[in-house]
């Protein structure tokens, strides 16, 4: 949770019998938080359940069991610690209270982490569209579908970037992927990075195709690939980008190399892109089908 109450990260679901502090230790959280306190001067405020997890994790002094009042210094300390924590607490309703599904989930507890992860990636502001609300509430169904889906049909996600409104490229790519045996989810135009990550977490595709033709691709693509690559759940996802990535018309080799370096598996920007991409699809389609 950030100091302003926005959640940053959620873990995969952990078994219910483990205590909170043990989970935090096993996930490497306590080590990371203590380190950030020591090196970045960024301590963590936590509830009293996390007592004795390290110098960087500040917890309130517990009320003595014998009914004696805490010393004024300790009371002052508790107030100071608990005061700012309300902001952090706000993050929990953002993850759980906003959506119907996390409150009434009936899927395997092991997969509950995915739903929370999906909620994390939808922005918690008033800009939420009803589509996003519908999406997160249907996450549960989506996950079940994912589990039931036949494993031999590879899944693809087709998407644009946030500032690009063109869609003919996306309509074409969807048909092309379908003809190469993919089942496709088309995220459409102007996709914010949060929606893209949430869409991928829901769909768990083998292939993500970003296509943008408005000339802002080189500016926007880096944050997209970073956010996709930092999700462990999407490890191994093949991500390609193509279209008109700058306003000049020709993309320099250095820019292509930079995109590949950031984690794209393919960059298609030349006049022969369509042929190249079809060859790429034939290749990766076979790989995805395990041939």
């Amino acid at each position, binding site marked *: 949770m950030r100091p302003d109450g926005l959640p940053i990260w959620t873990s995969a679901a952990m078994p219910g019998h483990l205590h909170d502090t043990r989970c935090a230790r096993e996930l490497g959280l306590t080590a990371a938080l203590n380190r950030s306190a020591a090196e970045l001067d960024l301590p963590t405020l936590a509830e009293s359940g996390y007592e004795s997890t390290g110098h960087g994790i500040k917890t309130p002094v517990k009320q003595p069991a014998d009914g004696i009042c805490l010393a004024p210094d300790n009371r002052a300390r508790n107030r100071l610690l608990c005061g700012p924590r309300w902001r952090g607490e706000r993050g929990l309703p953002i993850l759980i209270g906003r959506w119907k599904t996390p409150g009434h989930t009936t899927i395997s507890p092991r997969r509950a982490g995915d739903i929370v992860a999906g909620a994390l990636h939808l922005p918690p502001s008033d800009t939420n569209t009803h589509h996003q609300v519908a999406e997160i509430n249907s996450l549960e169904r989506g996950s079940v579908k994912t589990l039931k889906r036949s494993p031999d049909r590879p899944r693809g996600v087709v998407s644009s970037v946030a500032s690009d*409104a063109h869609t003919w490229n996306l*309509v074409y790519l969807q048909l092309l992927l379908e003809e190469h045996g993919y089942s496709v989810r088309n995220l459409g135009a102007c996709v914010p990075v949060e929606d893209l990550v949430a869409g991928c977490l829901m769909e768990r595709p083998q292939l993500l195709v970003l296509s943008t033709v408005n000339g802002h691709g080189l500016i926007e693509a880096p944050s997209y690939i970073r956010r996709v690559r930092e999700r462990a759940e999407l490890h191994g996802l093949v991500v390609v980008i193509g279209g008109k990535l700058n306003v000049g018309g020709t993309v320099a080799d250095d820019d292509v190399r930079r995109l590949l370096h950031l984690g794209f598996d393919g960059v298609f920007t030349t006049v022969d892109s369509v042929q190249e991409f079809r060859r790429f699809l034939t290749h990766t389609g076979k790989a995805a089908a395990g041939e």
Partner: protein
Amino acid sequence: MSGLGHFGSRVAGRGELVVQSRMGFSDPAQMLDGLRAVRDAPVESVGTITLDSFTRTGQLRRARDEVLRGTPLNGYPLIAHGAAVTRELIAEFDQSVFPIQLRHGSARPYALFKEMLAAGITATEGGPVSYCLPYSREPLSAAVAEWERSCELLAAFDGPASPVHLETFGGCMLGQLCPPDLLVALNILEALFFVQHGVRSISLSYAQQTNPLQDREGIEALRVLAGEWLGGVSWHVVVYTFMGVYPESREGALSLLAASARLAALTGSERLMVKTVAEAFRIPTVAENVQALRCAAAAARGTEPGEAHDDCGEILHAARTLVNTVLEQHSSIGAALVAAFRRGLLDVPYCLHPDNANQSRAIIDSAGRLQWASTGAMPIAAYAPAHEARISAADLLSMLGYNRARFDSLDPGHPDRTVGATTSSERPTPCP
């Protein structure tokens, strides 16, 4: 009302076709050069400031950061530069002779319109459907609500160069592969929406498609319906040069442009939005824009308005059915549009927006006319040839590239020379 500064009447009052480009640069100095070049070109023209797509999609901080960093954007970041800079930029243009239109592409335009009015610009464009379904993720109902208050803001403006002029973009849905009857219906519905919210100066749009005869019928149907519905409002028609996959060859690009100019002149349209020879590759330069304006004006000068023939019957009938069906949904046109899209009574083919049914499909028939392969739940008939509904990626690509193939084949040096035939009326006009 000063009258003189009024965009609509300035356009309609000139005898000749007014030609306009879509220019937008992030650097104010370059923007100024562009506007000057258009003003000084020997054609009847109006100025354009097109916004960049960060501003268009509300990513204002990003627009500001990139401006500070000096990255060239794909348009003019109005809010990052602010009304004061913009006002100064356009100060040297006498808008009673050379009015300027703001082109934005936003489904949430309220803040843009406020800034625009503060900067002294009183002509713009868009629409609750035409700038939502093709270009944004905003729910249609949210776009309708925002456009309602935005139209009221424009209608309430009472300054120099009022009333504010608003052009509906409904005739350009997705740029291509949308049959004319739906384009005409959306135009009329958006115009009625504007009128219901107080706007009194309107233009209707029509984007050139794949068959000149069909386009002519489409524009004639648009004029008939506008005459029936838009009494008491000043309106004119703006034709858009083909907005889809553009020819790559110079000759092909210029002849497609000339064909659209002739279409505009023939149908008595008042204004034309041009495209340039660079369209297939990148954002055009100032010089390319000016050249396009000159070519279009030259082509239009050689064409006399034709007699309106009665043969726009089919398009007119289908468009009228669509308009009437939608208006029956609700007395508020905004609510009627939302209901119509929800029920699939309006359905834009190939449009991916979640509020569009996307059940309808359009194809290009052997004569190059756009036809409905499937109309979904819309109250109009499909063309229904012995044609299976499934459209492959290759089919789609060839339909999208129909005009490119047809017009590039005009260029003797182009490899597609043999593809498609062109009538002599589509021969390119020599350019000044």
